[in-house]
């Protein structure tokens, strides 16, 4: 299956083996063909998946790789969306407003990252939750800038004088941004920066004794994560075309965390898997809604409760997420028929204290 490695350079290449290059190339090619083969509705849905993937990769760097939980990431999505829309409406060209939206969002990430440096685990989750609520409330009250409850229309972007129209234009734009974001994320993971983040996640005290400046790298992680999420936000703005502050609240934050969690913490594949899942769940429910027995399909809270139920089931039965299940399946087929049942059984786990860090 895997070829013999003959130089250290091979471990540094992005795709790894040659067969991977072929598979990822095919995947990219088929993604490029989507708008030609599917109706506008599905292209729109796919754009949504791509946008969630970008945000998922952003949050994965913070939560999955640095071990810092954010329950307020929707705020960065919102900041990116509003920054982009406001800049566009003031005449800033899109080629500038998009990166600026990312930078402004990254600055917001630094603003919350620095004061929360000393927090970890639970307290950080609560602090980011509070931060997220504050951003939404400020967005609602600051009528002059955001339009408050009236909302804010998002102008159609144009690149080099060509309007980028929904849905096909946005689809290609989101795809390009996703490729860029993945490139950056993979670079981070193969350099000292990424290893420093992983080190902080696994043991702060020994990361420090290895010469890693905790404050600096945690702040950098927040900045990059918020920046990438801000890019997703800018695209999200073009996808929905009308912004309202309350759409960036706690519910969206929980959806974003669910992306990284259901996908599988500590894996970029996981971020994508999770995004596909979370973005398409409402459509999947809509498809089967009418066929469900006992009128379940007509219940108003079906979508959020299924969302919650799946989250609960994943944590109870497959804590490594979709990516973990995927690895197990792959190993199962590779080893077939010599697989051993025990290697797929969950190990017994015991209570561990996280009060000490």
């Amino acid at each position: 299956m895997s070829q013999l490695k003959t130089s250290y350079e091979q471990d540094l290449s992005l795709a790894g083996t040659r067969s991977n290059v072929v598979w990822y190339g095919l995947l990219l090619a088929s993604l490029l063909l989507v708008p030609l083969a599917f109706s506008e509705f599905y292209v729109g849905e796919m754009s949504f998946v791509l946008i969630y993937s970008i945000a998922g990769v952003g949050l994965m760097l913070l939560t999955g790789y640095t071990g810092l939980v954010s329950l307020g990431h929707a705020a960065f999505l919102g900041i990116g969306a509003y920054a982009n829309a406001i800049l566009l409406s003031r005449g800033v060209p899109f080629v500038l407003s998009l990166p600026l939206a990312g930078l402004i969002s990254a600055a917001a990430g630094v603003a919350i990252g620095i004061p929360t440096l000393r927090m970890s685990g639970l307290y950080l989750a609560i602090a980011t939750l509070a931060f997220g609520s504050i951003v939404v409330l400020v967005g609602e009250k600051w009528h002059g800038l955001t339009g408050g409850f009236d909302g804010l229309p998002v102008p159609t972007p144009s690149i080099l004088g060509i309007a980028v129209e929904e849905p096909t234009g946005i689809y290609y734009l989101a795809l390009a941004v996703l490729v860029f974001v993945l490139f950056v994320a993979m670079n981070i993971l193969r350099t000292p920066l990424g290893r420093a983040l992983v080190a902080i996640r696994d043991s702060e005290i020994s990361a420090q004794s290895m010469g890693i400046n905790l404050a600096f790298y945690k702040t950098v992680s927040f900045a990059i994560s918020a920046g990438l999420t801000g890019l997703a936000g800018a695209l999200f703005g073009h996808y929905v075309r009308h912004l309202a502050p309350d759409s960036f609240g706690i519910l969206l934050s929980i959806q974003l965390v669910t992306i990284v969690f259901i996908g599988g913490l500590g894996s970029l594949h996981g971020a994508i898997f999770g995004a596909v899942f979370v973005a398409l769940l409402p459509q999947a429910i809509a498809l089967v809604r009418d066929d469900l027995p006992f009128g379940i399909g007509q219940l108003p809270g079906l979508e959020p409760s299924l969302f919650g139920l799946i989250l609960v089931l994943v944590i109870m039965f497959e804590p490594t997420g979709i990516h973990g299940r995927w690895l197990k399946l792959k190993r199962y087929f590779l080893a077939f028929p010599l697989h051993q049942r025990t290697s797929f059984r969950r190990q017994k786990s015991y209570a561990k204290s996280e009060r000490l860090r």
Partner: protein
Amino acid sequence: MSDEFFSARDIAMHFGGIRAVESVSFDVQRGEVFSIIGPNGAGKTTIFNMISRIYTPTAGTLNFDGQDITRIAPHRIARLGIARTFQNIELFTNATLLQNLLIGRHSHSTAPLLSQLAFLPSVRRAEVDHRKRAEEVIEFLDLQRYRDQLIANLPYGVRKVVELGRALCSQPKLLLLDEPSSGLNTEETEGMAFWIEDIKKDLSVTIIMVEHDMKLVAAVSDRVMALNQGRILAMGSSAEVQGHPDVVRAYIGGEPEAPRVESVAAA
């Protein structure tokens, strides 16, 4: 300013009313293995934590290689050339062995953030270089077959060696080993003694070691310091310290704070 390689001058560490370490002074010469022994709670690990700047000493100064390190930032210690291991192993459990060793190279990576994000050719060259260094350590410690395994899946004895390797990857001048034999069986402990000898001879690294296993201490140490209740009991060669009546008394019980009584046997 002291011209010793490493020196501690009257260092003290108080936690509230508890005096974990009280006016301890010692020097370590370049190239020696200096062991700190003593019963539980004697303040051995506290001294390590002061050197690696997890704690700031209540009083006293620490000098290393002609520099006062008493108050510098904890993450700068590694760059100066001090590496350490931990009593209960503090590896990065959800990363592979190789990644752990590469993290040990952190203090030698100088690439600016943006060039890392873009993975410029200079970053690539540096990465290959880090990898070569890590492979040398893997070779040195015979860890080849575990290279790509997650630490979480490795047995305890191997982890102990990996932690030693991670510290070596930073090419330290001074290595702090906190109970390198704890949790190891007799055979593994003997192996550890060989590694320590090799590190001292082949890599000419100075070592300060906290250790309980007297056989290991006797085998590798040039000098030994015995502590009890935060104070120095005795200092000298391994045999001298082990035979010292105060040390014997501290280990087998009795009044630890009465070193002057029964001084007949001392002399």
